[in-house]
């Protein structure tokens, strides 16, 4: 009986992932972002069993090109979700306000800690690790190694363990 329950659970999980309309869900996310003035243009969208990969993604905010990423990929296993961004280049006009480049950024949300989203990133600023606390509505990012932080230093605070960024939303 237990075996059967496990089997059917596995089948349901697999079927949910397999038949999930990932492209359409992404389009829905795009339309929600559009209402906030954010538009993503992508050269191609590839759907996998549990993944969705976007290539040559250009980010526009209020009609202005803000950044370009070589690759953006989503992975969902329902209980574990991951967003990966590779080679994100900030537009020249905004390089005095944001880091010039983010080589790799990973955002993870899992049911193990449902009120927390983990963030890891490596870029021109160095390396950072942090989280988004959904309960306290707070973003906290610790810069573990710092490189070029002059452009973003005004947003950062200096703590005992180094520079960090913190904001509420």
């Amino acid at each position, binding site marked *: 009986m237990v075996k059967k329950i496990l089997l059917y659970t596995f*089948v349901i999980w697999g079927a949910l992932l397999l038949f999930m309309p990932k492209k359409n869900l992404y*389009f829905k996310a795009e339309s929600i972002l559009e209402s906030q003035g954010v538009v993503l243009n992508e050269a191609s969208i590839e759907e996998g069993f549990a993944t969705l990969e976007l290539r040559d993604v250009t980010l526009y905010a209020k009609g202005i090109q803000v950044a370009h990423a070589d690759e953006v990929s989503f992975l969902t296993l329902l209980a574990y979700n991951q967003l990966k961004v590779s080679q994100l280049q900030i537009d020249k006009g905004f390089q005095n306000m944001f880091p010039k480049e983010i080589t790799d950024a990973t955002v993870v949300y899992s049911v193990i800690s449902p009120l927390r989203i983990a963030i890891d990133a490596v870029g021109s600023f160095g390396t950072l690790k942090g989280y988004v606390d959904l309960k306290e509505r707070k973003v906290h990012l610790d810069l573990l190694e710092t490189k070029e932080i002059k452009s973003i230093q005004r947003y950062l605070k200096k703590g005992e363990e180094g520079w960090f960024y913190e904001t509420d939303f």
Partner: protein
Amino acid sequence: MKQISKMLSFKTVLTTLFILVAVKLVWSIVSLLWLPVVGVDHQEEHTGKPLFYRVKLTPNEAPAPVKKKTPVKKRSSGNIKNIKLIGIYDSGEDAVVVLIYKGKTKVITIGESVNGFTLDHTTATEAVFSKNHKYYTVKLTKNKRKIEKMATVTEAKDEAPTATDTNDETPEGNATEQQHRVLKRSEVDMFADNLSEVYKNIGIREVKKDGKLAGFRVTFIRRDSAFAKLGLRRGDVLKSINGEALDNYATAYRAYQNIQDTDMMTLKIERGNKEMELEYEID
């Protein structure tokens, strides 16, 4: 026993298939009801920058020439107090006047009529209309404020209109007081290279009309900053730059990006209920 086992496995396969079909059906319904089938794409504007010419009918250096017309016998007659003269553009050969009639702004040239009054000729400060062989002079309304010194300003005047007989001609003021504001190239380049410096010195907020962007309102200007010298004030609404309407962020950003390649800039603003043009030369 074997038959029971076969029945069970057959049942399992059937159940599995049922689950697969059910899940597929659920996702299909979700897609059909709530999910879009196409994505959102940003469309680049390919309309091209509109050609922008600034035509000056009078040179900036000198006041508008006063036309010496053959004196006409003028008699006092009628009342054209509803016509408020707010601007005169005189090229020497032709003249255009800007006036407010029944709350609406009208632009007419010599020979054209408003409320039966035909524009006959202009001087530096007056427009002379004719009706039924009688002549009426409308003086340019006087500005209560000093026109901005920082920029070339063409603006409406505040004072109530006066309609008088031409016999009482007393020239008052100019329709446009034009002054060049020269901006330093080094300062412009510094702001062009550093967007964050712009936000430190001037604050702008979008202005919407009927749900559409209609310009940007100046929310603050830092004293002693380069922006304070532009002739802008808090509350001004930026309407267009070099003829391009600021009805989206991309236009504003494009103008900001191209400012290093620009020698002249004309900014159309709305101050109160009046529209003004500020003209800059970047040297």
